[in-house]
């Protein structure tokens, strides 16, 4: 489960910035094309944060929709999953967003 190592990166990235201050909230943004399952992140977060100053922090995950632009007809459209197909039938598509795997901000007490 790669969410485990990614959650560990998350905890360290936060600790690097917050030091010993107790963290009460962590705000993530995880796009549908990131390859990471938000539910698996939630599950791992409780395990990985235990015993650190992030323990018990509320994990909020923003899940934006992906956006793509067709290089053939110029249409911009929403991506549900990784099937990159324009409504016009072209597969020559540029992904504009959806790959986000970011820690946006944290709340410290």
């Amino acid at each position, binding site marked *: 489960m*790669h969410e485990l190592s*990614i959650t560990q990166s998350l905890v*360290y*990235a936060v600790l690097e910035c917050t030091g010993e201050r107790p963290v009460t909230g962590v705000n993530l943004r995880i796009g549908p094309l990131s*390859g*990471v399952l938000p539910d698996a992140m939630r599950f791992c977060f409780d395990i990985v944060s235990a015993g*650190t100053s992030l323990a018990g922090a509320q994990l909020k995950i923003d899940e934006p929709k992906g956006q793509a632009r067709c290089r053939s007809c110029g249409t911009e459209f929403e991506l549900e999953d990784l099937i990159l197909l324009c409504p016009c039938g072209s597969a020559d598509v540029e992904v504009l967003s959806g790959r986000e*795997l970011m820690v946006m901000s944290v709340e410290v007490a």
Partner: protein
Amino acid sequence: MCTTCGCGDETNTRVSTLDGTQPILEHQHPHEHEHPHPHEHPHTHEHPHTHEHQPVTITLEQNLLAKNDLLAARNRGWLAGRGIRALNVMSSPGAGKTTLLVRTLTDLGGQLQAGVIEGDQETSLDADRIRAVGRPVIQINTGAGCHLDADMLQRGLDALDPQPGSTVFVENVGNLVCPALFDLGETAKVVIISVTEGDDKPQKYPHMFMAADLVIVNKSDLLPYVDFDVDDCLRQIRQINPRADFLVLSATTGDGLAAWYDWLDGSTSRSDSLTESLSDAH
């Protein structure tokens, strides 16, 4: 998981020596991170009073794979500086990665100066198969870890010490999910599926196929016996990745291998433009 720090180096990764005798570099904390500390009040005051520590929002806006990506960029620079090409070979367990590598190294002999880095959770069986054909090989055992990351590749390259201008095949841990997320700094990603796995793999594991530079359908000798539609498989791949190269071959009968050797030949020169386009992007 490491009991010292419980760190993301979950696993007691073990990197072998070239002669395969013993693992060197037990988990040594090469990574730069702070170990978590329990919250302690830095100030020395009694606590009969109630003071609120002001809640604050701190903006981070940081990519969670930033650390791995940084190490991958370092590997990419290290490889480019020596003119070394690293091919990250990925598949489900049993698709034929090791078989194809052994066959390739045997067939091409002195025409291809190459070494191998083998990633497996346990055992050095695959490294032994490579060593048996007389090529330098390093085994990385990831323990509970289900993928290689850029830090492991760097340690593998240190141990392998490949010649400038040579090729390094990196056999990733058998898994079509997370190896796609962890950039190693490789020159190209090669994804293998075998015809016994079913032709819906690209749809089921889109991240892997999206990241591929080359997709190989292996075990073509078994096509008459299984329900695997090569054209349909290619169509699925094109939907998620219009630019990947595509080859059908059998690592055991040798059918289709000539095209794979041509690809290896062509991607030597291609690696230059690839490195250029990558450094242009940064």
